[in-house]
Structure formats: structure tokens, C-alpha cells
């Protein structure tokens, strides 16, 4: 019981994901800035942004559906945070695993996009609605290739469980090379999933302000942004687990370091 709580709340649950999410956001922003010949934010900027947003007053549009509007950010956060429990990150076994958990992880990672759609749609603002429709359209574009890539790897390992899959690949590293193409495709799909440049049309700032999130502010926006960060970390962990299965049969600590390196490689 205590152990389960520890897993959910501290490691690899919420606390770890929050911290890692902040670090990932910082790395993402800093690299983006350096590419553009800018200085970039200081290391605490993501945390500062989060604190600022949380402390702000919440304004909900009069026309919006209050329940959906308020629930969606929490759904997004919970869904992306839950997925980490099924992804092996420090050993060959994840916290929980059963035969078929690949489907659950993929499902949980698709949920946030739906919450962006619903949240945007129920904001009842033209900008949010167009952004919402765009993120849904984009969903169909990236989700299929992403699923295909991961399922192809699963077929090769002949299992429906992520942990089993990782075990298979770490014992047969040679098979890794077969998935190289899939890894590339999955990486691009992940960019689409995270609505990062150049797949950021759902929140194209110059036409539709901030897309789905136009009407969001304060805590709710902070949750949405946090769920983006966590999705980034979880998505990267998933790709690392499936496509880069190195060092998982070594000491847990070294494995974890390997995992960090891999995740940062994917984020970058």
C-alpha cells in the first residue's frame, strides 16, 4: 500500500514528473533560444511561470461550459501522469505491467489531445474552436503512424506488454536496428503530438491567438502547460523504452542515468 502510494506520488509518479517536466521544458526552451541566437531563460523560469500562473485569478468565460472547462486540464494532467506507471524506466519492469499495457499507454497518451479539443470547444470562443478542430485534425495525422511504429516493435518482440518488450530488446540488442525507421517516424509523430514547431498550427499564435487555450488562464492554464510538459517526458520515455533499450539489465542507478540521457536525447 505504502509502496504503491510512493510510486504514484513521488517516484516515478507526480513529484518526479513535475520536476522532470520543468527540467524538460527548460531544456526545450533553452535549446530553442540558442538555435535562434538568443540567451534563453534562466533555469528556474519554468517553475517561476508555473507559480505565477497558479497564483493568478481564474477567469471563466460566461458562455463556457464551466464543468468541462474546469475538468479538462485535470484530466489531461492525470492521463499523461498515469501513463508513466506502465513504462519501464529504471529496470526491465515498470511499476505496473500486464499483457496489453501498450494499448493502455497509447490510450492514456491520446487522452490529453482530446481534452485540448474538448476544453477548447467548450470555451465557446471562435479562436478556441478553430484551434480545437485543428488539434483534432492533427490527431488523426500523427496518431496512426505513432501507433503503427510502436505496434511494429511490439509485433517483433511478440508481446503486448511494454515491460516484456523492453526485456526482449535488451536481451536481443541486434533487433534494435530493425526499428530505426520506426524510431524516426515516431519521433516526428511525437513532435506533432506535442504541438511543437513545426507542427504548432493548432495554436498558431498569429491567426488564432493560442488555439484551444485562448480562454484558459490561471491555475487551469498552468495545469494544461504542466500536462504538456509531462506528456513530453512520458512520450520521450516511451520512445526511449521501445526504441533505445540500452543498459536496462544493468544496475538500477546506471539504468536510470541511461534513461535520463536517452530521454534528453529524444527531447532535444
Amino acid at each position, binding site marked *: 500500500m505504502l509502496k504503491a502510494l510512493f510510486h504514484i506520488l513521488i517516484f516515478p509518479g507526480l513529484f518526479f514528473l513535475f520536476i522532470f517536466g520543468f527540467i524538460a521544458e527548460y531544456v526545450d526552451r533553452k535549446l530553442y533560444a540558442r538555435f*535562434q*541566437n538568443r540567451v534563453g531563460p534562466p533555469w528556474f523560469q519554468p517553475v517561476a511561470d508555473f507559480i505565477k500562473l497558479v497564483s493568478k485569478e481564474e477567469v471563466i468565460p460566461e458562455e463556457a461550459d464551466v464543468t468541462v472547462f474546469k475538468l479538462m486540464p485535470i484530466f489531461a494532467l492525470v492521463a499523461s501522469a498515469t501513463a508513466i506507471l506502465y513504462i519501464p524506466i529504471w529496470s526491465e519492469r515498470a511499476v505496473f505491467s500486464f499483457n496489453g499495457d501498450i494499448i493502455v499507454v497509447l490510450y492514456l497518451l491520446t487522452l490529453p489531445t482530446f481534452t485540448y479539443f474538448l476544453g477548447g470547444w467548450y470555451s465557446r470562443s471562435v479562436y478556441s*474552436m*478553430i484551434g480545437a478542430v485543428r488539434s483534432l485534425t492533427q490527431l488523426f495525422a500523427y496518431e496512426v503512424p505513432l501507433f503503427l511504429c510502436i505496434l511494429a516493435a511490439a509485433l517483433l518482440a511478440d508481446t503486448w506488454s511494454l515491460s516484456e518488450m523492453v526485456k526482449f530488446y535488451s536481451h536481443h540488442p541486434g533487433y534494435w536496428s530493425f526499428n530505426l525507421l520506426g524510431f524516426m517516424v515516431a519521433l516526428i509523430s511525437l513532435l506533432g503530438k506535442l504541438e511543437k514547431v*513545426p507542427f504548432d498550427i493548432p495554436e498558431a499564435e*498569429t*491567426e*488564432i491567438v493560442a488555439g484551444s487555450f485562448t480562454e484558459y488562464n490561471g491555475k487551469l492554464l498552468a495545469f494544461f502547460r504542466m500536462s504538456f510538459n509531462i506528456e513530453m517526458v512520458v512520450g520521450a520515455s516511451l520512445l526511449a523504452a521501445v526504441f533505445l533499450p540500452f543498459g536496462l539489465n544493468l544496475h538500477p542507478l546506471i539504468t536510470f542515468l541511461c534513461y535520463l540521457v536517452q530521454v534528453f536525447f529524444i527531447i532535444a
Partner: protein
Amino acid sequence: MHESGDVKIPIGPQHPALKEPESFLISLRGEKITASSVRLGYNHRGIEKACEARSYTQCLYLIERICGICSHSHSTCFAQGVEEVAGIEIPSRAKYMRTLIAELERIHSHLLWLGVAGHEIGFDTLLMYTWRDREVVMDLLATLTGNRVNYGINTIGGVRRDINAKQKEEVLKAMDLLEDRTKYYIDLAQNETTLLKRLKGVGVLSHDDAQKLDAVGPTARASGIERDVRKDDPYAAYAELDFKVISVNTCDVYGRTLVRLGELMESFSLVRQVIAKIPDGPIAVKVLRKIPAGEAVSRYEAPRGEDLHYIRSNGTEKPDRVKVRAPTLANIQSVSKMLEDRYLADMPIVIAAIDPCFSCTDRLVALRDAKSKEKNTVAWETIRLNGIHWHKHRGVDFTSLNKRLLKTFNA
């Protein structure tokens, strides 16, 4: 025009695509634009009216503040008009100085536009790069004139600051650097797939439409119209300098980009020519405060197109009427044409491609009733009192502050 079944999106008055308040109402079917309309007038500042209550020299500073980017354009245009009314010929060195600042201003404005265009198509890296390079020319303007934006170098009858040998060297060095960078951007514009895909065939304005809608500046030149005041009606030192009018026939946003990039290269060569040819002599002549009665229309090729000022003098030290036609007003009508049948995603770049400067454009026109000949005009003093009253009504009162300020001034 706007049909009831379509989704209507208000772009503006406050919108991230626009840097200044202006309103575009866009009807959408899916992602496609079916109709669009423009509404001007959110930023009327009463500058023309205010000019009538100020002396010519004071007007010059006010006119300079019409636009933050082409400030030198407006002030030169106005000064030229006043000099024409007064019948003054300014010294040759002053003409060259005005040309120098004008071309440096064109460089900074076009680099600014390139960055904005990059941002509007989601190519933020281009924005960061061009604006970094723009700092070079901004610093140059600051060393030459003392200011980064409102240079304050013009005066009626010439210019206020001279250029020395050390500054000349600095200018030439900066030109070499910027020319290098601009060549890189030209290469980028011609070969980068992202840019080509986002710019080619977007915002088409045919040659005939451009003629009919009276487009000016790079917007017209990208539609194959070779219209450039510097060539057609040379002012300042342009008659003595050698340059080409850049025009292309692609009629789209891509063409407008190429025209601006080409003009950058021309500007570098113009600046070098000015530095080489600038004659010695005085930089200004003395002009009497009272300008003799008369009127003049002054034209000037601002970075955004032809700028036009009308000045009427009644023989006192204040102008009787000043009329400013900023280039954006001439170009804004063509935006609706360019947006026809395009996608929403093209809207920001199409609007940005005319390089709009909305605040410079807004004017108020009082219409006279044809039958009763009645008209309503308000004196400047009344507007000022109304303003003070409006703020007082809302709890903002500067009366005591003003009195205190006056006391310190007198003491």
C-alpha cells in the same frame, strides 16, 4: 460579402497578428476565407489638427511622431513641403544627409519587415536573426543622430547634425556587414523550402488590380508596377545618385519579399555613394518663422511606399492646413483583394506583406452637407479641454501637478 452561415472571426482590434489596433472581420468556411472587411480608425490621434495650433518647427517634431519606424520619412516630407512654400533651396550637404538617414531608415525598416514576416509564418528563427542584424543599423542611426527611432535630424531649411570622417568609416563598416547578412537572407528566400511554400502564390494582387486599387511602394513594385518617387520625382540627392527600381512580376507575397530584399541591396549601394559624394558646405540655411502664404504637395518614397503631405500656409508662423496621406492608406484596400479564396493560415502574412502602419493611417474627415453647407469642426483648444474634462471625470486630475511644474519652471 459576409454570409450568415459562415464562421466570422474578428481579427483585431486587439490580436497577436497585428502590432497596432485595426479590425479585420473575416468570414470562414472551414479554413477558407470567403469574405473579409477592414475597419479603420482605432488610433486616430488628431495630429493634423494639432499641427494647426503649432509653429512650423514644432510641427516638424509632431509630424516625426506619426510613425515610429518611418519617422524620418514623414518629417522630411513635411520639411520639403514647407521649404517649397517658403521658396528655399537647402544646401547640398543637407540634401545628402537627408538621403543618408532616409536610406539607413529604409534598411532598418525592411529588416524589421523581414523579421515580422518570418514571425507571421511561424519562422521565428528568421525574426531573431534579422532583428539582431537590425541592431547594427539602429546603433548607427543612434551615433549619427542621437536617437534610435525619432531621429530629430531634420529642421526647416536643412539638417541639425553633421557627419564626420570617423562616422563615415563606421557607416561603411556597418554596410559591409549588413550586405553580407542580406546576401544570406536572399539566398534563404530563394532556396529555403519552408519560405517558398508559405510565400509563393499567397496574397495575389494582379498588375491591373494593383493599378486600380492604387497600391504604392513594394506592394505595387511586386505586381510589376515600376513606381518609385525617388526615380519619378527625385527629391533630396536622389537625382545625383545611381540606383535601380526593383520590381518583380510574381504579384504575390514572395515577390514583395524579393522586392524588399533587392531594395536593401540598393540601399547599401546608395549609402556608399552618399558617403563618397557628400559635398562640403553648410548643413542648413536660416528660415524666417513666418512662412509666406501658399500651398505645396510634397512626395516622398517611404520604406512602405509613397508618402504624401499637403501643406497650406496663410502667411503666419502656423500652418493653415496639413494633410498627411501615409502609404498604408493607399495599400490597405488591396488587402481584401489579396485575401480572396485564401486559407486562414495565410491571413497574417498577407496583412503583414503590405507592411501596414495603421496608426500612421488613421484620419478623421468632416463632411460638409451639400445643401445647408453646414459643417462641424472643433478647435484644438476645445478638444484639449474635453480631454482634460474626460480624465477628471474618471478621477485623473493633473491640474495641481501642472501648477507645481509651472512653479518649478519659473523658479
